[in-house]
């Protein structure tokens, strides 16, 4: 009997300790989440490749669309010239956006729609504050 009682006590004790551990884990998970937010700590080489690829691809796409319009409508050089220039603009915007220089020039909602990391999060309430210090 006594033995059983002791066992119960130990069981209870263990349960309490487990609950305490769980609470501790939950709180540490919360802080971990804050600590482990990506600090945009990409090495310079990766960053350079990322931005240059964004810039160049926008120009190529612009020129490509222009060429397509030209060959469809027969306005040989003009559409391509215009779209190439627009491609440059889009490339600069891509780079500014990914470097965080152009977070939201118009409105908050726009930047959120564009996938700027710090401004999204309509679904996760209470996590918004995590993103406040996370600017490039």
């Amino acid at each position, binding site marked *: 009997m006594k033995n059983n009682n002791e066992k119960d006590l130990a069981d209870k004790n263990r349960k309490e300790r487990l609950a305490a551990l769980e609470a501790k884990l939950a709180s540490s998970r919360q802080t971990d989440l804050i600590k482990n937010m*990506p600090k945009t700590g*990409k*090495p310079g080489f*990766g960053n350079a*490749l*990322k931005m240059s*690829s*964004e810039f*160049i*691809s*926008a120009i*190529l*796409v*612009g020129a490509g*669309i222009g060429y397509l319009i030209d060959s469809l409508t027969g306005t040989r050089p003009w559409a391509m010239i215009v*779209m190439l220039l*627009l*491609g440059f*603009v*889009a*490339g600069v*915007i*891509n780079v500014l956006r990914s470097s965080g220089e152009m977070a939201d020039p*118009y*409105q908050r*909602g*726009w930047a*959120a*729609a*564009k*996938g700027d*990391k710090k401004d*999204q*999060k*309509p*679904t*996760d309430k209470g996590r918004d504050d995590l993103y406040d210090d996370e600017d490039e």
Partner: protein
Amino acid sequence: MANDPIHQFQLNKLIPLDIGGTDISFTNSSLFMVVTVAATAAFLIWATSGRGLIPSRTQSLAEMSYEFVASMLRDGAGSEGMKFFPMVFSLFMFILVANLFGMFPYFFTVTSHIIVTFALSMLVIGTVVVYGFYKNGIGFLKLFVPSGIPAVLMPLVIMIEVISFISRPISLSVRLFANMLAGHITLKVFAGFVVSLSGLGAAGIGIAILPLIMTVALTGLEFLVAFLQAYVFAVLTCMYLNDALHPSH
């Protein structure tokens, strides 16, 4: 051939196949794709087969990769994005394992061919476009219309936004492909220096130590790049999926 840095990217037909004039041969690239998928699937199935409450070493590795991708997706696209978890996880594991397989000597690097990475990124953008229209209907087009813009500038801005959107799959694929290609070529060139310098006698062997050190350092860097590029690809996938889920607010 021994010193040709491009040779490692050559495709060889292992099983020539030709259906209706279309060449669909089974190449060394296909072989390594199959190996990558098989290795990933086999590892995950084997690692999680124990189902221990206290995970073994391999099981916790599998759980870690799950947690890593899941939290990335939740941060990037909200909890609604979790329905895309299978896709993002498969993409991440495929690219990561393919990149790491590429680090073995004499192995073929699948992701160093732009058609492979472009197919992967088109899969992502295709999902974004199809799901965006399916979920938001015509409202998905709001993605291209920033709010608070004067009507005069609207056509110009929409044009720029469209170009910016179309450039995404291209920059996504070019980034992964260029990183792997450039890394492997640099590695091969520096390793080639070691061989050709050590052919010059005693002095040459002395100097050959320099590119050897460089090769060792670059190998470490390449492992980092292999992981980082898989990570970047997955993160951007999450961001684009976020666009499909919430085009504008």
